[in-house]
Structures are given as structure tokens and as C-alpha cells.
């Protein structure tokens, strides 16, 4: 199978939001994506203030990030079912549960979730950014 969830206890597959692991066959094409905060994908470096105005609502920050990845996935002929791994970086761990709810919405109806790791960190690339996600995706070669 090109990309598959790995479950030590397959019967408990629906007990977790993210599977313990996801395997990717070596015949797959990989897409390693840069991390994104809730500012637009294309923005100047060094940052200019006008481009880095972030919404205060963590749900909106999460949605904007996932919308950015939706764009990158679709540009490459991929969908949410092709996402192998999320790395999530939060500045305030109290917001963890809310962020996972928004992520669940994006995967609703796909019967799929990637592997995911989350850590609470100090700072992200723009003031006011409270979440960064980075993504690895893969699909069969043909």
C-alpha cells in the first residue's frame, strides 16, 4: 500500500485522532512543505508589518494555515488523504484542543488522518502568530 496508517491495535483505530504512525512506500513521490503560520503563503522576507497582521482567533489562524496547505496540496494534485505528517508548533498549549477540532473539520469525511507531533514553543516568525504547522505529503508515482 502506498500510504497507510500503522496501528499497533487496529481495532482501536477510531479511538485516536491521529494514528500512531503512517508509512510511505519507497515508490511514492514525496512533498516536503515549508511550515506555515496564518500569514499568506507568499509574503516578503524580511517581513513587512502590513503583510503580517494575524487574526486574534486561534480557530481562524488554524483555518488560514490549513487553507494555505490546501492550496499547496491541490497545486500538486494532492488532497488531504495524501498528508502523511503534521508537525504542530503552538505558543499557548491551552489552545491545543481547539486547534485539533479545526484540524478534525478539515479531515472530516476523508476517513484519514496523518501522523502528528505537537510541541509548545516560544515564538514563531511573526508577532501574534500562535500556531505553525508543517506538512509532509506523498502519493504514488503514477
Amino acid at each position, binding site marked *: 500500500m502506498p500510504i497507510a496508517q500503522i496501528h*499497533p491495535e487496529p481495532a482501536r483505530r477510531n479511538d485516536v485522532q491521529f494514528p500512531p504512525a503512517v*508509512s510511505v512506500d519507497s515508490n511514492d513521490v514525496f512533498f516536503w512543505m515549508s511550515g506555515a503560520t496564518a500569514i499568506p503563503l507568499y509574503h516578503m522576507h524580511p517581513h513587512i508589518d502590513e503583510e503580517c497582521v494575524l487574526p486574534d482567533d486561534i480557530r481562524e489562524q488554524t483555518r488560514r494555515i490549513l487553507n494555505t496547505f490546501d492550496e499547496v496540496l491541490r497545486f500538486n494534485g494532492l488532497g488531504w488523504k495524501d498528508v502523511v505528517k503534521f508537525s504542530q508548533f503552538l505558543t499557548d498549549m491551552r489552545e491545543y484542543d481547539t486547534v485539533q477540532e479545526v484540524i478534525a473539520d478539515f479531515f472530516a469525511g476523508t476517513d484519514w488522518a496523518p501522523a502528528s507531533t505537537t510541541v509548545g514553543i516560544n515564538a514563531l516568525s511573526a508577532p501574534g502568530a500562535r500556531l505553525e504547522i508543517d506538512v509532509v505529503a506523498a502519493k504514488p508515482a503514477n
Partner: protein
Amino acid sequence: MSITTAQTGRGGHHGAAVKVTGPSGLYFLSGVNPNPVYHSQPLTDAQASVPAGIRDQTELMLSNLVTMLKAGGMGWSSVAKIILYVTDIREATAVRAAIVDRFGDVWQPAYTTVQVDNLVTRGARVQMDVIAAGPTA
């Protein structure tokens, strides 16, 4: 073998580098930490509780790692890369020592270790982000 130690250059002592070649697949593990592998989202209080000390937390974490690797038909020597997240960088040495105690020091994955603010569950002091390599179905 499709997962091997790579070169680390002419000078100084660098951490290990690991090379993975096909027909190995890559396995991306969800955060490996002291909490149970199977837990609800949000976690229940019981699932979220961790022992106080770094050594006890690391032992739970490593047992979870073994469980996750075994499910993919793999073991420690399939681990290619670890990002080790600790809440206190001074405890990284204890974590590494526990890893060597359990798995030996012959196989060295690539490591990056950073100190972060906190992890998902209160009191958790350590988490690993792991990429492994092994045959896929």
C-alpha cells in the same frame, strides 16, 4: 541494508547521519511521548497523567516507541531520525542515557535536541518526533 550510517565528515565529532535507500519505505511516527499511544482527543485525566521524573517518563516513552515500531515490523535500528524535545535541556543527557541502556549504542540515529516551553500534557518533560525506515506492505 537500506538504512545505514552515513558519513559525518572529516573534522570534529558530529552527531550521527543516517542514509536510507529504497526499497525502504519511510515511517512517520506521531509524537512519541510518555502518554498512552491510544488516547482520546481531548485526553482523559488518566491518559494525560505522567510520572514526575525524567527517567520514568523516558521509560514509558521508549516502551511506546517499541510498540509503534513493532506495529510496522521494525525495531530500534530502523529509527533514522529523532527530534528530541525536552522541557529542560539539562535532562537531555538522562534521556540519551536511558536510550542507550535500553537499545545499546551500536545503532545511532540522527538526533536534534531542543528545549521547548511545554508539551501537550501537563508535566510531560520529553517527546520525540521520529522518522523510521523499513519495508512497507
